[in-house]
């Protein structure tokens, strides 16, 4: 599903965010990327989502060599991915329903189908009753769950999450992780950047450990 081969990323500032990173992730895998801040976790996710382009090496996502994806094609490429951010990136002038519906609206689905799928996604994250609320009236955990619902409403094959539990207490974090767990049960590949080591060790999943832009360890858990 995701294949990095000798991939490096050097920013214009001269900083090497990733150095010669190679790994492969199968479809349906749930993988954590860990490491200190500045280790290159976010950069790795950005390369997968085509928010950045690698300076050297290759990135292949879903059989597609990203070097060949032209700027014009990026939107269509991103529609197969669900992205979740630490700061949620919700639109505060729209209801929860409209926020979650956005990927479907963008893809041009008919109205009835949008309503059905948004409600299914909200039900999945336990926020069906809050569809008419505005994000500002929700708690941090609820906002994050709206963000997750938006990331999966269009049934992407791959979900990327950058510190999805960054601001949440351990119990809420655990709940969020269970949602990701459920997705991976149905074949969705999940790539989650986090430095919550305690939580990650309880999840018993594969870990890519980064340090100073290099892949320090590919820690697989036998299940």
């Amino acid at each position, binding site marked *: 599903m995701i294949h990095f081969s000798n991939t490096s990323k050097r920013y214009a500032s001269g900083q090497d965010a990733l150095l010669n990173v190679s790994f492969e992730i199968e479809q349906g895998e749930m993988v954590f990327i860990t490491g200190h801040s500045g280790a290159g976790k976010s950069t790795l996710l950005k390369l997968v*989502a085509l*928010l950045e382009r690698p300076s050297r090496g290759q990135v292949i996502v879903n059989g597609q060599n990203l070097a060949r994806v032209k700027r*014009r094609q990026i*939107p*269509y*490429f*991103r*529609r197969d*991915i669900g*992205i979740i951010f630490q700061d949620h*990136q*919700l*639109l505060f002038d729209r209801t929860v329903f409209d926020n979650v519906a*956005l*990927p479907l*609206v*963008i*893809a*041009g*689905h*008919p*109205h009835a189908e949008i309503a059905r799928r948004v409600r299914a996604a909200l039900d999945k994250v336990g926020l069906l009753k809050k569809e008419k609320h505005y994000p500002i009236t929700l708690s941090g955990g609820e906002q994050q769950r709206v963000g997750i619902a*938006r*990331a999966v409403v269009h049934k992407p094959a791959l979900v990327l999450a950058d510190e999805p539990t960054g601001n949440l207490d351990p119990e809420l974090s655990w709940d969020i992780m269970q949602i990701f767990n459920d997705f991976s049960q149905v074949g969705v590949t999940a790539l989650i950047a986090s430095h919550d080591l305690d939580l990650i060790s309880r999840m018993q999943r594969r870990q890519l450990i980064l340090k100073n832009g290099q892949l320090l360890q590919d820690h697989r858990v036998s299940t």
Partner: protein
Amino acid sequence: MTPAMTSHKRHPGILTRIGSYYMRHAQTLIYTLGQLLRAPFAMLMTAAVIGIALALPTGLHVLLKNAELFSGEIDGATQISLFLKRGASEQQAQQLTHRLRQLPEIGKVRFISKQEALKEFKKNAGFSEAMKALTENPLPHVIVIHPALQHTGEQAVKKLLVRLQGMVHVDVAQLDEEWIKRLYSIMDFIKRGVWILAAMLALAVLLVVGNTIRLAIQNRREEIIVIKLIGGTDAFIRRPFLYTGFWYGLFGALIAFVLISLSLWLLNEPLERLASLYHRERQLTSLDTQSGLLLFGGGILLGLAGSWLAVGRHLRDIEPR
């Protein structure tokens, strides 16, 4: 299975998709209108600037059209005025008139003695007070000549003019077409000026809309980033801004239309008074359909173009990081 059937099978909802495509356009149109009406004052300010910029050249265009119609009425027949020398007596003038009647090139001759001219002048021009102050009649005798129908060609008239100019007692032979020609060339000049003005003001509208849309884009920066992150195409992001430009253009044209109608209404009364001095009934004609379409079409087009320029320039700068 035929190719048509396979493709039908692959896209089961193709018709609904096309339907929903237009639905989404209609929704965006209504949505952007709603957004604008949420801040009606700010919207009206911008629309008014556009409206004034559109009203100026359009209004001038309407006035020119009216002037053309008006001059067209006077254009009628060619007419030559012979102004006689101050020294010529009435009798001499009468004799000349009689002689001119014999010429085959000449159709109709009318003699206006200087006394008659003075009377006419006092009655019509409203100069009676000023005229009273004169001790002596300053006007010459005038003979007004209409060339015979078969001699109204430009060359024939020119020849006749030269001949009349050479006659005794004649001071000036004046072809009254001249001033109409002059009027037309003045109007051509003004018309060109109106076009230049229109071009400059169109540029102004473009910039006003462009700047307004640029600010709108900056205000919605976060939203644009989110939409780009979840796979919104440039066209999708551009659409609401283009429709916003469309509304600005439409409202601007509407305001311009109101301004022009109001101005014409205000000008109508003094014009009627002016026309009555020329023994004419006149009403200003308002915007004709063609000019109206040009105003609204131009306004909308400029609105769209302005927002297109702004979106094209600023959308690329906003990329998620």
